[in-house]
C-alpha cells in the first residue's frame, strides 16, 4: 500500500513506524513543513500505562523513550504563599524535541521516507499518489479544513489565555502556582522533562490578561512580566521563549475521523485541554490503534471504521475530563475563598476521577493533613485555635450552625413518601425517621411539610399548621431526640401550582382526580397540560401566605425541629416567584430579579422573625432551573447573598422542576457542581444530595469545600454485594477506557507510586 502521512509530529511519526513494522512492503512517505530539528514546545508527559502500550507496540522506540525520560511522583501547589505537597502520583517527562528525534531515527531505520521542509498547500495536489492518506497535521489540520463538510469539525476556543514557556530550572514535582496581583489571578502549570529545564505554562483569564497589558506585549515583554510575577518561585532563574504567544486553547472535535481513504490522527482529530496533559499520548495511541486495525482488517474501510470505533470512546472520556479540568482553571477565581488545604484538595480532585480514598492511598500523610485541617476549621468556627493531632475523616467531623451542633455530615431522609392523613404524619413515616436517626445519621430530613392544607403536594402530604399536626410532630421529634443524637431538619413548603397531585408512586405531577383543591401560584399558568390553572396570588393572599409560613415556623419550633428549611425550589410556590419562566406578574413582585425575589424574601423575614434566634434557618434554592430562559447560577448567587444578609445560615442546593420538561446531566453527585458554585459565590454553607451513596463521595465533596452536609441514600441491603467484583471478559475494552481516564492523565492523576517499580522492572 502507498501511504502518505501529512505531518511529522508524534502521531505521524509513530504511525509510520508501526505501519512499516507491520508490513515492510508499505511505501510510506511523511511530508513535513518544518525542518527535522525545528520544534515548538518543551516537555511531554506519559504515564506508565501509556508506556506499557508503547512497549508492546514498538520495543525499540519504547526503550529510547524510557532511556531519556525524567520520573517524578509529587504535585506541589503554591497558593497564598503556602506550599502543599501531595505524593504518590507518577509522571514521566520527556522533551518533545527528543521524542521527535528518536521517532525520526526509528523511521529512518525502518525505511520510511521523510520529506522535511515540505509544506503542503493543497491536498488535491497529493491526489493519486496514495492508497491511504493519514492526516497527522495537527490542531490546524489542512486536510480537516479541506474536507470540512465531511468531518464537520467543531473548534471551541477556551476562555483563558496561556503562553507556553520554558524555565531554566529543574523541578522535583509537577508544580502549580497561583498568584494574584493588581491585574488578577495567574496560574502556572510547570513540570520537568529533560534534566535541565522545565515546561512553564502561564495562564490567566481574558480580563486579567488585558489589564496586565499582555495583549499588546511582545514575547520579551511577556517573559519579563512573568519573571517578575513569579520571582519567588523562579529564584533568579530565567524563563525561556520558544516563539511563544498568548493563545486560547482550542478544543477540536469531528463528527467523523475518516473520509474514503483519508483518516485523521492526533490533534487533527481531537484535542484535550493541556491541564490533563494527554495530547501526545492520545496522538500516539491513535497511531497504535490505526496500525492494529490496518493489520487486522484487509479491507481499508472496515479497518478505518474499527480504528475510529476503538478510539472514539476513549478520546471522548478524556475530552470530558479535560473539559472539566479546563473549566476549573477558567473559573479558578471562584475557589479563592478556600483555605490552602481545601484549595489543594479541590484542585487535585477537580475532575472527579480522583477521590479522597485515592489520595489517601497515594499519600497517607496528605490524607492526614486534609482530615486535621477539616477538624481544625470546625474548632476555628467555635472560636478556638486548636492544633489537631488526630482527626476523623471529614464525614465524621461535627458542624455547627448558630446554636446547633450536628455530630456528623451525613443527612438521611425516608425513601418512601409520606402517608399522612389530613396532614398528620403516620406512624410508619415516624418510625422510618426514627430508624434513620438511630442508625447513625447526623441529621434526618423530613418530607417537605405543608404550611396549609392547600399547600400540600398530594393528599398524603404532611402538614404543620394545626394543633393536631403539632402534637404528632412533637411526638415524632421527641422520640428521635431521646433515642439518638441526630438532629431534625424540616422543609416548610407550599406546593403552589404543583399541588393537588396524586401520590408519586405512579408518576410525578399527575393531578388528583377527586378532591383537588384550588391552587395558587405567582402567575395563572398550569404546570402541565393536564394540570389545573392556578390563581395568581394577590396582595392580600401574599400577606396571608407570609403569616401562614411564620405560623408554621412557630409550630416547628414548638415541635422541636432543629433546622428549619424554607423551600424556595423545584417550582413550588416561592420558587414560582423567583423564576422568570413562571413569574409573569406586572406588579412590583414580577419583572426584575430584585422584584421577583421580593415576596420570597418577605416570607423569609417573617419566618426568621418567628424562628428562634439561636436556631439555624436554611433555604432550599434552585441554583438553576436547568432550562433555557430560566433562573440560573448568577441569579441564585444574588438571591443567596441577599438571603445571607437577611440571616440565612445554610442553602440546600437544588435544580429543575420549575417546568415539567427539565432534564439534568444525571449521575452520581450531579448536584455537586451547583452546590460548589453557590457555596463559593455566597459564602454560605450548603447541604447537597444528588444520589450520594458512599463515604468516599461524601469525604471528597466535604474536603474539597463543595458542600458542608450531604444528603445520602441508605445502602440497599438486598444489594450489598461486592461492588469491586471482577468485570467480565467482554468488558475489557471499556474497562480499559475507563481505567485509562482515571489513572493516566496528569497532573491530578498519575498512578500510585508503587507502579513506578513496575515500569522500572519492565525496562
Amino acid at each position, binding site marked *: 500500500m502507498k501511504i502518505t502521512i501529512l505531518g511529522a509530529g508524534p502521531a505521524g511519526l509513530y504511525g509510520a513506524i508501526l505501519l512499516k513494522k507491520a508490513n515492510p512492503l508499505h511505501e510510506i512517505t511523511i511530508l513535513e513543513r518544518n525542518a527535522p530539528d525545528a520544534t515548538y514546545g518543551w516537555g511531554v508527559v506519559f504515564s506508565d500505562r501509556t508506556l506499557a502500550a508503547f512497549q508492546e507496540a514498538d520495543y525499540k522506540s519504547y526503550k529510547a523513550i524510557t532511556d531519556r525520560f525524567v520520573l517524578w511522583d509529587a504535585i506541589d501547589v503554591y497558593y497564598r504563599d503556602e506550599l502543599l505537597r501531595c505524593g504518590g502520583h507518577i509522571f514521566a517527562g520527556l522533551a518533545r524535541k527528543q521524542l521527535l528525534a528518536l521517532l525520526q531515527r526509528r523511521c529512518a531505520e525502518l525505511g520510511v521516507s521523510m520529506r522535511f521542509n515540505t509544506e503542503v498547500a493543497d491536498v488535491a495536489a497529493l491526489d493519486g499518489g496514495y492508497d491511504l492518506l493519514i492526516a497527522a497535521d495537527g490542531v490546524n489540520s489542512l486536510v480537516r479544513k479541506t474536507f470540512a463538510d465531511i468531518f464537520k469539525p467543531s473548534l471551541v476556543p477556551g476562555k483563558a489565555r496561556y503562553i507556553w514557556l520554558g524555565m531554566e530550572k529543574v523541578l522535583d514535582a509537577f508544580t502549580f502556582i497561583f498568584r494574584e496581583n493588581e491585574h488578577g489571578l495567574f496560574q502556572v502549570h510547570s513540570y520537568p522533562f529533560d534534566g535541565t529545564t522545565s515546561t512553564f505554562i502561564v495562564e490567566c483569564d481574558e480580563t486579567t490578561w488585558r489589564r496586565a497589558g499582555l495583549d499588546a506585549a511582545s514575547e520579551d515583554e511577556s517573559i519579563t512580566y512573568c519573571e517578575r510575577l513569579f520571582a519567588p518561585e523562579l529564584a533568579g532563574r530565567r524563563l525561556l521563549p520558544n516563539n511563544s504567544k498568548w493563545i486560547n486553547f482550542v478544543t477540536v472535535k469531528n463528527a467523523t475521523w475518516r473520509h474514503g481513504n483519508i483518516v485523521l490522527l492526533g490533534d487533527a482529530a481531537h484535542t484535550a485541554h493541556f491541564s490533563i496533559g494527554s495530547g501526545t499520548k492520545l496522538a500516539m495511541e491513535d497511531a497504535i490503534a490505526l496500525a492494529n486495525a490496518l493489520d487486522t482488517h484487509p479491507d481499508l474501510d472496515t479497518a478505518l471504521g474499527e480504528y475510529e470505533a476503538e478510539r472514539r470512546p476513549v478520546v471522548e472520556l478524556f475530552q470530558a475530563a479535560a473539559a472539566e479540568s479546563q473549566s476549573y482553571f477558567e473559573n479558578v477565581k471562584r475557589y479563592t475563598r478556600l483555605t490552602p488545604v481545601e484549595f489543594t484538595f479541590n484542585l487535585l480532585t477537580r475532575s472527579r476521577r480522583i477521590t479522597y480514598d485515592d489520595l489517601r492511598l497515594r499519600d497517607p500523610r496528605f490524607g492526614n493533613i486534609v482530615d486535621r485541617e477539616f477538624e481544625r476549621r470546625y474548632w476555628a468556627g467555635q472560636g478556638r485555635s486548636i492544633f489537631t493531632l488526630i482527626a476523623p475523616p471529614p464525614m465524621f467531623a461535627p458542624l455547627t450552625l448558630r446554636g446547633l451542633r450536628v455530630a456528623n455530615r451525613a443527612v438521611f431522609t425516608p425513601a418512601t413518601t409520606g402517608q399522612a392523613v389530613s396532614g398528620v404524619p403516620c406512624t410508619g413515616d415516624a418510625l422510618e425517621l426514627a430508624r434513620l436517626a438511630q442508625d447513625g445519621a447526623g441529621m434526618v430530613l423530613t418530607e417537605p411539610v405543608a404550611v396549609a392544607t392547600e399547600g400540600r403536594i398530594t393528599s398524603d402530604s404532611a402538614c404543620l399548621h394545626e394543633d393536631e399536626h403539632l402534637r404528632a410532630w412533637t411526638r415524632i421529634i421527641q422520640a428521635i431526640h431521646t433515642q439518638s443524637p441526630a438532629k431534625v431538619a424540616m422543609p416548610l413548603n407550599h406546593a403552589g401550582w404543583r399541588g393537588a397531585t396524586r401520590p408519586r408512586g405512579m408518576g410525578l405531577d399527575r393531578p388528583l382526580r377527586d378532591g383537588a383543591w384550588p391552587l395558587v401560584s405567582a402567575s395563572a399558568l398550569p404546570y402541565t397540560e393536564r394540570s389545573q390553572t392556578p390563581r395568581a396570588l394577590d396582595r392580600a393572599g401574599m400577606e396571608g401566605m407570609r403569616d401562614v409560613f411564620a405560623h408554621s415556623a412557630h409550630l416547628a419550633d414548638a415541635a422541636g425541629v432543629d433546622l428549619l428549611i424554607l423551600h424556595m425550589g423545584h417550582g413550588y410556590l416561592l420558587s414560582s416567584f423567583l423564576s422568570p419562566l413562571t413569574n409573569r406578574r406586572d406588579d412590583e413582585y414580577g419583572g426584575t430579579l430584585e422584584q421577583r425575589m421580593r415576596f420570597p424574601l418577605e416570607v423569609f423575614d417573617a419566618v426568621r422573625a418567628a424562628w428562634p434566634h439561636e436556631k439555624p434557618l436554611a433555604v432550599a434554592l434552585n441554583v438553576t432551573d436547568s432550562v433555557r430562559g430560566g433562573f440560573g447560577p448568577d441569579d441564585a448567587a444574588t438571591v443567596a447573598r441577599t438571603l445571607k444578609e437577611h440571616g440565612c445560615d445554610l442553602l440546600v442546593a437544588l435544580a429543575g422542576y420549575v417546568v415539567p*420538561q427539565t432534564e*439534568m446531566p444525571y449521575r452520581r453527585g450531579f448536584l455537586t457542581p451547583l452546590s460548589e458554585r453557590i457555596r463559593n459565590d455566597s459564602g454560605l454553607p450548603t447541604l447537597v444530595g444528588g444520589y450520594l451513596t458512599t463515604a468516599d463521595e461524601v469525604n471528597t465533596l466535604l474536603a474539597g469545600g463543595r458542600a458542608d452536609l450531604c444528603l445520602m441514600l441508605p445502602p440497599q441491603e438486598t444489594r450489598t454485594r461486592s461492588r469491586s467484583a471482577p468485570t467480565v471478559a467482554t468488558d475489557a475494552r471499556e474497562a480499559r477506557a475507563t481505567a485509562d481516564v482515571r489513572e493516566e492523565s496528569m497532573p491530578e492523576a498519575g498512578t500510585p507510586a508503587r507502579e513506578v517499580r513496575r515500569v522500572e522492572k519492565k525496562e
Partner: protein
Amino acid sequence: MRVGVGLPSTIPGAPGHLIVGWARRAEAAGIFSSLGVLDRLAYDSFDPLLALTAAAAVTTRVQLATAILVGPQRNTALLAKEAATLDALSGGRLVLGLAVGARKDDYDAMGIEYATRGRRLVEQLATLRDTWEDGAIGPRPAREGGPPILVGGLSDAAYARVARYADGYVHGGGPPRAFARAADKARAAWNDAGRPGMPQMWAQGYFALGGESAAETGTAYLRDYYAFTGHFAERIAGELLTTPQAVAQFVRGYADAGCDELILFPTVADGDELERLASALSGLATIEIPATSATASANAAEAAARRAGQP
C-alpha cells in the same frame, strides 16, 4: 436478580411454532421469570405484542416484557388498548418497556417523522395511564393503574422520563459496567424527582451456547440486526455470550450493579438453545428462582395493592 429469556421472534426465519413452543418450555424450565421481546418493523421479525400474546396463551406465570417497544411508532390510544388487552388476557403479566428506538428506517416505513420521536414518547407516557384509568377505552388492565411501564434510552431526557412517568428503567445492552453507569443515572433522576423507593431495573444481553457454529450464526445475526449502527454492530456482536462461563460472569456483573431482572435473548433459531441457557444458569447463586404460580399471583396481587396505595 431475576433472569428472563427472550423469544426468538426477531431472528429471521424462526417458525411460529418455535416461538410458541419456546414460550411454553421457558416457563416449564422454572428458572426464568419473564419472556422478552424486541421491536423492529422493517425486518423479518414478528410483531412484539402479538408474539407476547401468543406466549401469554401458553403460559400462566412468567412476566411478558417488551424490551423495548418503539412507542412513538404506535398510535397511543391503540397501544393503550393493546397493552390493556394483553395485561387482562395474561392475568396482569405485561411489563411495558418503551423507548424512542434508533432505527430511522422503521419510522420511515411507519410513515412517522423521526424527528418527532421524543415529543411523541413524552405525550404517550403522559397519556397511557390516564387512558387505562379512564375506562373509555377498555378493557380494564388486570392491575389497577395498568401494567408497569419501563422507559429505555441513554440520554438525560430518557432518565428524566423514567423519573416522571415510569416505574422503572430498561437498559439496551452492553457490558455490566455500562449498565451500572446507566442505572446510577436512572436512580439519580428518580431520587431527585422525589419518587418513592427505587426504579425497577431491567436489562438484557445476547447468548448463543451451541458451540462454535452457534456462535458464528449468532454473531452473523447480530451483525445483520445491528447493521444500521455501522461499526457499532461489530461491538455488539463481540459481546455475544457463547459459553456458560461468560453467562455466569455477565449475570454476576449485572446482579452486582443492582439489576432487578436480566433478559437474555437468543440469537439462533434453535429450540435447544433454551435448555442450554437454563443449564448454564442453574445453580448460579445470584439468581432468584421465581416462585410457583400460586405464590407469584399472590405476590402480584400484593404488589398491585401496594401500587394502588393501599397499605
